[in-house]
C-alpha cells in the first residue's frame, strides 16, 4: 500500500490547482469546477487518513461533503444561468456592481 504522504501530496496539488483556478480563470463555470476540485482534494485527505487510522469517521464526513457539493453545484449553476440570461456573459470581471 502506498504511504500516507503520497496521498497528502497529491491532495495538496489538486487543492492548489483548484485554488489557482478559482482565482485566475475568467469563466464562472470553470470557477465552479475548480471549487469542486478543491472539495474533492479535501475528500481525498479524509479518506487517506481514515484508512491510515482505521477509523470510519473520515469516510462519513466525505459523504456529507459530497452531498453539500452536489447541492452547491445546483445552486451555483442556477445562479450562473440566471446571470448569463441577464448579461450574456460569464466573465467575473464584468460583474463589478458592488463596489465603492
Amino acid at each position, binding site marked *: 500500500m502506498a504511504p500516507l504522504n503520497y496521498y497528502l501530496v497529491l491532495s495538496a496539488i489538486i487543492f492548489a490547482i483548484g*485554488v489557482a483556478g478559482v482565482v485566475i480563470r475568467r469563466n464562472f463555470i470553470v470557477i465552479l469546477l475548480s471549487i469542486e476540485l478543491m472539495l474533492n482534494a479535501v475528500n481525498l485527505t479524509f479518506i487517506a487518513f481514515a484508512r491510515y487510522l482505521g477509523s470510519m469517521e473520515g469516510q462519513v464526513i466525505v459523504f456529507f461533503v459530497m452531498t453539500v457539493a452536489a447541492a452547491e453545484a445546483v445552486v451555483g449553476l442556477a445562479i450562473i444561468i440566471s446571470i448569463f440570461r441577464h448579461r450574456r456573459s460569464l466573465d467575473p470581471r464584468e460583474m*463589478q456592481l458592488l463596489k465603492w
Partner: protein
Amino acid sequence: MMEQFGLLRFIPLIPLAGAALNILFGARLRPQFAGFLACGAVALSFLVSLAVFWLLPASGVFRDVLFIWIDSEPFKAQLSFQADALTAVMLLVITGIGLLIHVYSLGYMGDDEGMTRYFAYLNLFVFFMSLLVLADNLLLLFVGWEGVGLCSYLLIGFWYEDHTNTIAGNKAFIVNRIGDFGFLLGVLLLFWEMGRQGVWTLNFSELERAAHLLRPESVTLITLLFFAGATGKSAQIPLYVWLPDAMQGPTPVSALIHAATMVTAGVYMTARLHFLFSLAPATLAVIATIGALTAFFAATIAVAQNDIKRVLAYSTVSQLGYMFLAAGVGAFSAAIFHLFTHAFFKACLFLGSGSVIHALGGEQDMRKMGGLRRYLPTTYWTYLVAALVISGAPLTAGFFSKDQILWQAYASPNGSTQLWLLAWLTAGLTAFYMFRQLFMVFHGACRVAEPAKARLHESPAAMTVPLVLLALGSIFAGWLGTPDFMWGSVWDPWLQSVLGVQEAVDDAAPGGELFLMALTLGIAALGFLLAFLLYGRESRVAERIAATTIYRWLAHKYYVDEIYDCVFVRPFTACARWLAQIFDPGFIDGFVNGVASTIRAGSLSWRRIQSGDVQHYLFAFLAGTLLIFAYLLGR
C-alpha cells in the same frame, strides 16, 4: 446653645413662593394683584423675622435643618438655616425695609407694564438675600450670594428696551463675577486647608472651632480672597464701578438692592467670618485702608455729580467704605451698626429721590430741578431728615454709628490717625454733597421745564408713608447704640454673642471720644455751610466752580471708567476679537477641517481596493490565509 426653630425656613420660602406664583400665574392676574401678593409675602416673612428676633434668647442660636444637601464622606453639608443675633438684625433690615420698599413700589411702578415681572424679581431677591443671611455654611451663603447678584442684574436691566440699561446690568454682573471668582477661590482654599487638618466642613460654627488650626499665611490668603469677593458685591475699590451704573434700574430697586441690603452682603460676610479675619492682621489692614480710601474717594466724586441718583450711588459706595473701615479695625459690631442705620437713611434718600423723579416724569438731572419744596412737602421733609442723618446731625442714627466708626478708626489697636483723618474728611464731604443736592433739588428757583411743571404733584400715600416711616427710623435707629457717656449701647452686648467681645479701646485721654465727636460735627457743619454758600443762595460761584479743571475731573469720576476701559476692556475685547476672527476660524477650524479633509483624501484613494471583483477579494483572502499559516508555522 442651639435650638430647633421650625419657622425659620418660612422666612426665605414665603417670598420664593410669592415669586413663583407671580412668575407662573402672573400673566393671568391683574398687575395690581401681583403687587399685593408680593407685599403680602414679604409682610409674612417680616412677621416671622420679628418672631425670631423676639424669641431669640440672648447668646442663643436657632437652627432649622431641612435635609442633608451633600453627603460625600468625609464632607457633609446640610441645607439648614441658623439665626443668631447677627442674622436676626439682618433679617429685620431685609424684610422690614424690604416690605416698606415693596409698598412704595406699588405706587412707583403702579402704571408700569412689567409690574408682575418686577414684583416677581423683587420677591426672588428677598428670598436669596434671606437665604444668604440665614445660611449656616459657606456653600449655602454662596448660593444666596450669587442669587442676589442675579436679581440685581435682572432688576438693573428691568427696562430692557433701553440698551444702556442692559449694558449697565451686564457691567454689574461681570464686575461682580470678578469678585465672586475670588470669593469662590477663598471658599475652596479654606475647604482644602481645613481638610488638610482633618476638618472637612464649611459650617460656620465648626469652622470657628477649628479656625486656630489654620496656618497664618493661608488664613491671610483666604481672607484676602474673601475680601476680593466683598469688594465686588459691596462696591469697594477697585470693583466699585458697577454700582453707579446700577442706578439705571427702577429707583425702589436702587433703594432695596443697591443701598440697603445686597451691597451690604460683603460687610455681613466679613462679620460672619470675623473669626477668620481676626486671625489675619494683614488682611484687616488692607480692609481698613481700602475702606477708608473708598469712603473718601467716592465722596469726592459725589460732590460733582449732577444726576440725583448718582450722587446717592457714590454716597452709598462711600458709606460702605465706612463699614469696611470699621470691620478693618476690628470693630465688626460698629460696622453692622452702621449697616443697620445706613439701611434706613439711604433707603429713605433713594425713595425720596424716586418720589422726585416720579413727580418730574423721569427727570434725573438736578440742574433741571430746584424749588421743589413747595410741590413735594412730604418728600422734602423726609429728605431733609435723611440728609441730616447721613451728615451726622447730633442725636440721629448717622451721628451715633458714624462716630462709633470714627472713634474706632482712631482709638482701636488696629486704627491709626491717617485712617481717622480720611474718615473725618469724608464726613465733611458727605455733609457738603448731601446739602448741595438738597439745595439744588428743593430750594432756589424752580428750573423745571414748563410742561412737566404743570404736572408736578406729591406722590401717593403708598410712597409717602414708607418715606415717613424710614425717616423716623433714621432718627431713632441710632439710639440703640449710643456711646458710653450717654446711656450706653444695647447694640454691642446683643451682638457680642456672635462677634465676640471686642478688644477694649485704650482710652488714654478721657473724653477723647467726645472731642473727636466735636471735631466731626465741626467739619460736617463746615460742609453744610459751604453747600449753603455755594448752592443755597442765588450765586454765580457754582458755575465758576463747574468750569474748573478739578471739577471736571470729579464730574468724570477721575476717568476711572475710561481707564478701566483702556486697560482691561479694550485689550480684552481686542483679544477676544482676534480669537474669534483669526484664531478660531484659522487655527481651530483649520485643525478640525484639516483632519477631516486628510481622512477624506485618504479614503478617496483607499476605496479603490474595493474593486467589486470577486476574484480580487478571493485573492486577498488567500493571501491573508497564507500569511497566517506562515506565521503559525514559523513560530
